[in-house]
């Protein structure tokens, strides 16, 4: 691990692999969320499975949390080192002349996503942990759909989620293709990877945002 911190290239690889891992997780997450729009029953079943399967709970969940932590902690380390590497700053610096805004502001899009993850954990994960392990409530395979839709009743939460998805889109717009370059892939497939990145960076956050807005507009009538 100390070797990883020492070499700039190893740090980049950690960043890229943890980022790609999170991208994979996003695909899984968005697919499940879409179920909440298409089939509440399937959404309940799948959520219940995820919530009570020991492999998911005690192996995959810790790996995911570790992946997030490794990614943003490494991001902060890189950012601090990169700022220090400039030393005296320029009086005039035209970053926009040679690099895209998203690529220059990964730390800010990442920070917004991180802040969002804080809220998101509070909304769902903390609640879930308390329900299962603190209050020790019995398993109820039918509660997930209602709980999820109720979360999006307040407009403020729906809006925060949508804004976070926009920033996630920007983060992925650069990050996804960038991780291939970091892993040494720059060849005849690179234009295709870049095109795919743009589609992915729009479609996935758009789907997340759609689901949040959909539930906000279709509240459960008691």
């Amino acid at each position: 691990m100390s070797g990883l911190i020492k070499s700039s290239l190893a740090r980049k690889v950690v960043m890229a692999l943890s980022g790609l891992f999170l991208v994979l997780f996003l695909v899984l997450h968005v697919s499940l969320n879409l179920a909440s729009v298409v089939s509440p029953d399937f959404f309940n079943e799948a959520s219940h499975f995820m919530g009570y399967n020991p492999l998911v709970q005690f192996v995959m969940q810790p790996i995911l949390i570790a992946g997030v932590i490794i990614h943003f902690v490494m991001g902060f380390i890189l950012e601090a080192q990169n700022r220090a590497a400039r030393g005296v700053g320029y009086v005039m610096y035209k970053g926009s002349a040679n690099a895209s805004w998203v690529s220059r502001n990964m730390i800010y899009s990442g920070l917004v996503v991180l802040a969002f993850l804080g809220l998101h954990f509070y909304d769902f994960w903390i609640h879930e942990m308390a329900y299962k392990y603190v209050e020790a409530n019995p398993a109820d395979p039918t509660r997930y759909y209602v709980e999820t839709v109720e979360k999006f009743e307040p407009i403020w939460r729906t809006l925060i989620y949508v804004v976070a998805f926009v920033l996630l889109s920007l983060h992925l717009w650069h990050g996804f293709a960038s991780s291939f370059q970091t892993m040494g892939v720059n060849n005849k497939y690179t234009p295709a990877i870049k095109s795919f990145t743009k589609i992915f960076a729009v479609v996935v956050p758009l789907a997340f945002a759609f689901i949040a807005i959909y539930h906000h507009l279709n509240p459960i009538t008691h």
Partner: protein
Amino acid sequence: MKLHLKIWRQKDANSKGQMVDYPLNGVEEDMSFLEMLDVLNEQLISKGEEPIEFDHDCREGICGTCSLMINGRAHGPDTRITVCQLHMRSFNDGDEIVIEPWRAKAFPVIKDLIVDRTAFDRIQQAGGYISVNTSGNPVDANAIPIEKDVADQAFNAATCIGCGACVAACKNASAMLFTSAKVSQFALLPQGQVEATERVQNMVRQMDLEGFGNCTNTGACEVECPKGISLENIARMNREYLNAAVKA
């Protein structure tokens, strides 16, 4: 034309510098940027002031010595050229031009606009060589056939002139483009294979030791590089590095 120059002045490595305003009249479009500075310096000398120190040597875009940040861009507003190839026709009468040295912790200012780029030399020394027994070596290098496109790629990597614009332009002051060009020019050729593993590891280690930043793939270096060194070289260096890590 008449210009309003704002130029970084710094007495020596230990002094604190500052921007100083210099109005300059009678600049002609056909002057190169460095000739424009020569004109200013002659005026300063005739007034008994100290001339502005800036690096230059060949003045034809091949040595990589000239190094100025002009209006926030490495080697000025045009692409694929060095400062010595930049001409005043790229500017307009009445323009304000901000001139600063390369900024990187690994490139400390020596005086005014001159920075110390020996960090690049040390990266090169760490692995930018091949071991060939030159005494009584009967094998001519040209006797080894190399595919044309591979030879071209190696040659393109070798056109890096070590100017440091990549570091200057990068928001992270990363030296990855330079180092990757120097790794690639050997990695692509059979003569470079003997030391391949240690080369990339040693050069990257030296690059880190010098205090350059981490690449975040913004691509600024590639845009500002006067020789058009491509990001493909950085990907190649990353591959070489990953391969070396697997082998070791």
